[in-house]
Every structure is written in structure tokens, then in C-alpha cells.
């Protein structure tokens, strides 16, 4: 046995079962060819590597493989294997006994051959060669020689593409964007096979769709398509992944925000950026295995549904003004700008650096005990308080100043709008408990603002 012929059947979950099977087969041998509707594999070079013919076939058709099982046949040459595949019931027939219709080159002459009383390959081969060439042309004889191993067999070998790019024609036109997900799932399943074959994870991919030209007008199309001739959705993940469920969920969230001006007939999925994927190491101890999604999956899913600006992480800065001490970044921006986590933000000046090394001494801000006196809630914009009899009022009652003042003068280099000349007080409100207020001294007359709440 040197050749395996197999017949992929159309698979509902996949876009192109032939391509999927050829990508799968390519890990067993580099010689995979497509002939008519079958795939032919030349495996003589790798039989020993996989531990024998049976072991190789076992791993090629292993049951946990997600593709549907296929019919296959073996043979000494590709044409014999292919011929045996076509008469499925008798896949162990000797080459001489194979019926003539299984030989592609003989199909054009089948009526003539039948009238000559020929039924199988052996009878055809027994005829004189000269007469055969004169009667049927050289093609038939060459094919017969190939089938019996007297001529080398050369095919255009299939290769694994560098970039995944699969089109899909939808069975019926799709009106709503979220329904595109069904088609996209099939494309994603195909993408997963490609990623596994290449041992890569996808970082960015795009889904393209074409509107049905007959039912869309130019105005719609121009409004819908920004730039190119197709609708387009780009999906990015923070870490390379082969997890198609995660991608399908992200895609679903994004598609839910798209409105289609006209029905869609064609879909296309293309990988934009991939990266080699290292294997995952799993702990031996069962208690170390934590179940659940990873953090970046959570962040991407939240950003996809709620909007990228609604999911935020903090960056601390060395500044004396409370509103400048921290900045809440959208997670997506942080990933793009390469900002590290938390305290890793680069300080700008020498003074700031001293502050930072001091602050980082104990993996946190433990060296700055006065920070613990700051409130845990900050108001996004300071709230201007009314003043009655010289005392600021909040929630209908006067505030009693308890601690302070703490004088703050900062930001004179940043211009008038950011300059701060403030006296901070901890004040007690009868309703809201302790609050953090400041008295702005810039304008000449005292203005009181509420800036934080103690929780």
C-alpha cells in the first residue's frame, strides 16, 4: 500500500470539506492531491514514521476528529486506490477485476469498450497495445500504465495556504446582521482547522460581506460601505487564540450593532494576523486548574457588548492634584498603547521618579500613609457647593470642617485651567457622612467644591 484515496462528504458545519480534509491530511504526508471529488495521499514516505500502515490510517481517521467519517480505499497506485474507492462494496478487488468505469481515461469510450465485451481493467490490459493506441488514443494506455505502476504518477500537490481566506455563498439572502453569524460560524470552524494545521493562533481577522446587488441601491451601499466595495468587520484579540467559541461570541456582539441596508449573499473570512501558538501547560494537581475564561477574554467580551470606553483600568501618575493622580483608561486603548499595568507608568521628571521609587518600595503605596486619608470615591467633576453664612452646604445642611486645611498648589505650568490653588478639608455632613471638600482660592473669592466621598 502506498496510496490512500478518500472521499470527503459535504459537511454542514464546514464551508469546504475538501480543503479541511486536505489540511488535515497534510500533516501525514506532503503529497496530497485532489482528483475529481477525491483526495489522493501518497504515504509510502511516512509509513515508518507513524509506526506502520494501520497505525497511520488509525491516526488519519481517528474517531475524535471533528470531521465526519469518510470512505477510503488503499491501493498500490493512486488509480487503483481511486478505482477501489469508487466501487465501495468491494474495496479489496484486485486491480485486474476493477470495472472499467472506475478508470477516468476510459469513461469516454465506455460504450465502445462494452460492445467489445470488455468489463474490467485486466481484459483491457490484455489487448494489444498498438491497436489500443490506434483505436482509443495514447491517453488510455498511459492511464493504464500509471495504474499498474509502469509510469510515474505526478499530480499538482496541494499546499497549506499562508493566509486563511475562505468565501462562502449563503444558501439564501440574509437580511439581518445577526443572522450572518450562522454563516460565520461555518467559516470559523474552517478557520480553526487551518489554525490547528499551522499551529498558530489568530490575532486579527476580518469578515467581509457583499450586498445583493439587485436589491440595494447605490446610496445605501455608499452609506454602508466605508471605502471598499464590501461591508467589513475587523475582529482583534489580545492574545493569539484558537478558541472559536470566544471569537464567535465577539463576532456576535459586533454583528448585533451592524444594520444591513440590503440582503447579503456572500460572506468571506480572512485572517489578518496570526502568531505561532505555544502549547498550554496544564498543572498536574487538580486544585491548580481554575475553571472559567481568562481575563483577556472577559475584557474583550465586555468591550464588545458595552463599548470599548466602558471597560476601564487604572494608571497612576505622580501628581499632587487628585484628579490627575489617576487616569481610567479604556482597556482597548491600554492594549494598543502598550501601557503596562498600574504602577508601571513611566514617570516624567526627576522629582516624580523619586516619588515613584519610594512608592514602589513595597509593591504598592504603603510608604505613603497620607494617601490612606484620601477618600475612596472621587467625583468625576467637582461639585460646586452653595455657601451660607460662610459655611459650605451639602444635601441641605451645613458641612462641619473636621480636618484641614491641607494646602495644594500645583499645576502652574499647565496653564490657568489646570492650575490648582486649593485648601482641602475633611468635612462632616449630617446626611452623607464624611466628605472631602476644597476651597478654591484662584478667583480671589472662596468657592467651595465637593471632590470626594469617604465610603
Amino acid at each position, binding site marked *: 500500500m502506498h496510496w490512500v484515496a478518500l472521499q470527503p462528504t459535504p459537511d454542514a458545519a464546514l464551508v469546504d470539506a475538501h480543503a479541511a480534509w486536505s489540511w488535515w491530511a497534510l500533516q501525514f504526508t506532503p503529497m496530497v492531491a485532489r482528483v475529481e471529488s477525491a483526495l489522493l495521499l501518497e504515504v509510502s514516505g511516512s509509513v515508518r514514521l507513524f509506526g506502520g500502515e494501520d497505525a497511520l490510517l488509525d491516526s488519519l481517521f481517528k474517531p475524535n476528529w471533528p470531521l465526519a467519517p469518510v470512505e477510503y480505499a488503499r491501493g498500490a497506485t493512486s488509480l487503483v486506490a481511486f478505482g477501489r474507492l469508487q466501487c465501495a462494496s468491494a474495496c479489496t478487488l484486485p486491480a485486474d477485476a476493477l470495472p472499467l468505469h472506475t478508470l477516468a481515461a476510459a469513461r469516454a469510450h465506455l460504450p465502445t469498450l462494452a460492445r467489445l465485451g470488455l468489463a474490467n481493467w485486466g481484459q483491457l490490459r490484455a489487448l494489444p497495445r498498438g491497436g489500443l493506441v490506434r483505436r482509443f488514443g495514447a491517453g488510455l494506455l498511459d492511464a493504464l500504465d500509471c495504474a499498474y505502476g509502469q509510469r510515474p504518477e505526478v499530480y499538482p500537490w496541494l499546499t497549506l495556504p499562508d493566509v486563511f481566506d475562505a468565501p462562502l455563498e449563503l444558501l439564501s439572502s440574509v437580511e439581518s446582521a445577526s443572522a450572518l453569524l450562522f454563516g460565520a460560524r461555518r467559516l470559523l470552524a474552517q478557520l480553526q482547522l487551518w489554525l490547528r494545521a499551522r499551529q498558530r493562533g489568530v490575532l486579527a481577522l476580518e469578515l467581509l460581506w457583499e450586498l445583493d446587488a439587485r436589491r440595494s441601491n447605490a446610496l445605501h451601499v455608499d452609506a454602508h460601505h466605508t471605502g471598499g466595495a464590501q461591508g467589513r468587520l475587523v475582529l482583534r484579540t489580545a492574545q493569539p487564540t484558537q478558541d472559536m467559541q470566544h471569537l464567535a461570541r465577539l463576532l456576535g456582539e459586533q454583528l448585533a450593532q451592524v444594520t444591513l441596508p440590503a440582503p447579503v449573499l456572500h460572506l468571506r473570512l480572512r485572517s489578518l494576523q496570526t502568531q505561532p501558538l505555544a502549547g498550554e501547560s496544564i498543572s498536574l494537581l487538580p486544585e491548580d486548574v481554575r475553571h472559567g475564561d481568562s*481575563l483577556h477574554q*472577559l475584557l474583550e467580551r465586555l468591550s464588545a457588548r458595552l463599548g470599548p470606553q466602558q471597560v476601564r483600568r487604572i494608571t497612576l501618575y505622580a501628581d499632587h492634584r487628585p484628579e490627575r493622580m489617576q487616569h481610567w483608561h479604556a482597556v482597548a486603548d491600554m492594549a494598543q498603547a502598550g501601557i503596562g499595568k498600574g504602577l508601571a507608568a513611566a514617570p516624567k521628571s526627576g522629582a516624580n521618579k523619586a516619588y515613584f521609587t519610594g512608592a514602589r518600595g513595597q509593591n504598592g503605596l504603603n510608604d*505613603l500613609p497620607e494617601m490612606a486619608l484620601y477618600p475612596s470615591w*472621587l467625583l468625576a467633576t467637582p461639585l460646586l457647593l452653595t455657601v451660607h453664612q460662610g459655611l459650605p452646604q451639602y444635601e441641605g445642611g451645613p458641612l462641619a470642617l473636621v*480636618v484641614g486645611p491641607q494646602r495644594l498648589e500645583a499645576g502652574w505650568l499647565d496653564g490657568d485651567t489646570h492650575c490648582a490653588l486649593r485648601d482641602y478639608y475633611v468635612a462632616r455632613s449630617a446626611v452623607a457622612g464624611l466628605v472631602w471638600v476644597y476651597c478654591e482660592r484662584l478667583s480671589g473669592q472662596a468657592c467651595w467644591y465637593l471632590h470626594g466621598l469617604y465610603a
Partner: protein
Amino acid sequence: MPVSAHLSSWKDARADVWQADALASAPGRVLATGDVLLNTHLPGGGWPLGALSEILQPPGVHNEWRLLLPALARSGTGAVVLVGAPHTPFGPSLGAQGLLPHRLLWVAPQASAQAGAQRLWATEQALRCADVDAVLAWLVQVRPEQLRRLQMAAAEYDKLLFVLRPEQAQGESSPAVLRLWAAPSPNGADTLEVRVLKRRGPPMDQSVHLSARASHLACVLEASGHALGRTAAHA
């Protein structure tokens, strides 16, 4: 021999006798609250892990950090997700009190008709994440079956889950394992009044008064109080 002394010695001797006034021993793990007085009133001696704890507060009052910060600071190194926080969390202050700011993840769904549903969804997604240690969700209007869903997710993934709700929800039924009501004491003392509305164990008839401030701040407040007192005496 006094009867009470006799009884207590009998109680000590028979550890296998169930006593009706005892708190349930916690079925799961707990995380100490950082406050000895509060610990004694919670089953197992702390916040339950893998369960929903509900904290009810009057409007405009925020004592959540006072109650939760010590436990959150010791909860691990994973993310602490804040869903729908009422104001901007002030990272430097939280960091100085032990909760590293880079653990914080602030999810703030935009105000819209589905904001409530989105908060619930985000809370549930955060519970399903392996790298999250605790979730704090501020939910205003929520139905018991929605809370039940969160409780199931917290139990399945073994997370700390705190739901902060207005005190009007006190009358509604809730699947929470632990329900607290917390507000500043009405008598003017700087203490925090905590009432346990629901727990695994006998109902609590008296409320607990905790010091309302973390220790740093309490010291400063006390010092300034002395200073003010002296100034007043001078005058």
C-alpha cells in the same frame, strides 16, 4: 452551684449537641472581614466565598469600602471588578489601604434603557472569569430570579460577590446567603451601624456598631478633634 455555670459546663462538654442559638458552620470557605466584631456575627466568621452577599444602604451613603476593603485587600491577586460604581473609584487611596489599584477593573455601562440588564450581564460574565477574585455590583432594580442567577454563577465559580442595593429593597425577597444593612449611626457618634437581615443562623436582634473609619483616618480625626477642643478651651 449557680445554674448558668452548670449549663455552660454541660454545653462545653457535649460538643455534638446542637444548640439553637449557634450560627451555622459555614458550608464553604469564608474570608475574614478584617473586623473582629463583625466576624463574630457572620456564619463561619467572614464573607462567604462562592455566594451572594447583599449590602443595603440608604441613598447617598456609601460605606461599601469601609466594610469590604480589608477583605478585598487579602482576597488574592486577581482582578476586582466594579460593575456600575456610583462614582469614580480613587485608586491611590484604595492602594494605600491595601487594594492594589491595578487589580481594579471598572465596568460602567452607559446609562440607557438596558443599563440594568447590561450590569447583570457584565456581573455574570465577570463571575465566569478565572482571573477574577471578587465582583462588586451596584444594582438598583433587580428581580429575585436575576439575583438567583448571579448566586448560581458565584457558587459555580467560587467567587466573592457583593451586590450593593438601596435600602428600599429590604422588603423584597432575595436569594442572598447574607444580607446586611449598613448606615451611619443616627445618634451622631462616628460609628457605622450594621444590621444582619439574613444569615444562616438565628436572626439577629441587635445591630452592631463598628468604627466608621479605617484606623489611619480615625487617628487623624481624633487628633484634630483634640486640637479643636484645645482651641475652644483657649478661647
